[in-house]
């Protein structure tokens, strides 16, 4: 089990399905379980791509 900050509230969730996480990382939670890590690099890449597209218009 792990404690996560959900919009300012601390919640206890299970890491049974996503054990490989460290303090400070973001996870996707579904019905009390972390089911996937949020990949910051990929998020930045997507945003950079979108930004570039919007500027090109």
């Amino acid at each position, binding site marked *: 089990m792990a404690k996560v900050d959900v919009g300012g509230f601390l919640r206890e969730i299970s890491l*049974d399905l*996503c054990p490989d996480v460290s303090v400070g990382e973001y996870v996707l939670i579904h019905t009390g*379980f972390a089911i*996937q890590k949020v*990949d910051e690099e990929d998020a930045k890449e997507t945003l950079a791509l979108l930004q570039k597209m919007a500027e090109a218009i």
Partner: protein
Amino acid sequence: MKFIDEFRDQEIAKGLIEKIKKSSSKSIQLMEVCGTHTVSIFRYGIRGLLPDHIKLISGPGCPVCVTPNSDIDFAIALCRQEDVILTTFGDMMKVPGSTSSLQVEKAEGRDIRIIYSSLEALRIAKENPEKKVVFFAIGFETTSPTIAVAILHARQEGIQNLFFLNSQKRIPPALYALLQSRQVKINGLILPGHVSAILGTGPYQFISEEFSIPAVITGFEPLDILQGIWMLVKQIEENRPSVEIQYKRIVKKEGNPLAMEKIETVFKKADGNWRGIGRIPESGYRFKEPFQAMDARRFEVVVEPSKEHPECLCGEVLQGIKTPLECRLFKKACHPENPIGPCMVSIEGTCHTYFKYQ
């Protein structure tokens, strides 16, 4: 980065809409499979932002909505047993069965408890060893591994009084059935982000390979959805159907192998019964042999014959064949305070979303 506000940027959204307008020439219909997508699309007014020739239709991805009356009737029969505590996700409470609902049963004194996680059912079972605790297990591939984990914990800890009324569904076989029926024109699929966080891209390959239909696994923020639509438009215009991932910050090609392993340890594929659609091959799960003692369907209870409201169009709405606006009951006899079909109950249900935003 909080991964939410960044994906709601108005300027980037405007750019994406322009891009979609410029690169699309064909008249197309895209289906958003997932109810959470339907909610986002309505909340952010995305339908109104797209050019007239791009139409969005809603699909079967609401787990409450696809649960057939016969399963709700079974849950009601179970909760009427003196020694049973029925646990369920909150959304199921108001869904009408053939003649009653869990909410009505609770008001009449049955021990029905709303839970947020399968692990709470495990806790309730431990705290009430003299009772049989049944979890009404609904959900798609996002939820199934969490149910499998509760089952594995129960077995490991020797819990004997926890049972599962299994009504879980698998999304890819339902999409297969939908595409095969050809009842609705679908030029592209906006695939569910969180189901795909578990599945990855593998189970969807048939969509492009067998049906030549483009598909994009998409996130739920407005920029995610607009980018997903733009990726579909590009695939369609360039005539290169494939399964792509827009929601890269969450969905990996291989999905979540550990979660899949949990599902496969506990369940085997079996036919699933979908509301309004009927039996779809391999679209559900059955317990594997070592876990069959936890199957609540083994309880000897009298389940009333199942019947549905003759005018409710949930079945057609779930397949994108009709919209809620075509239903005679919509906003008249059927509304969130008095839902007649499950699509008006669930916050992810298409009728509920139309009621709230249309």
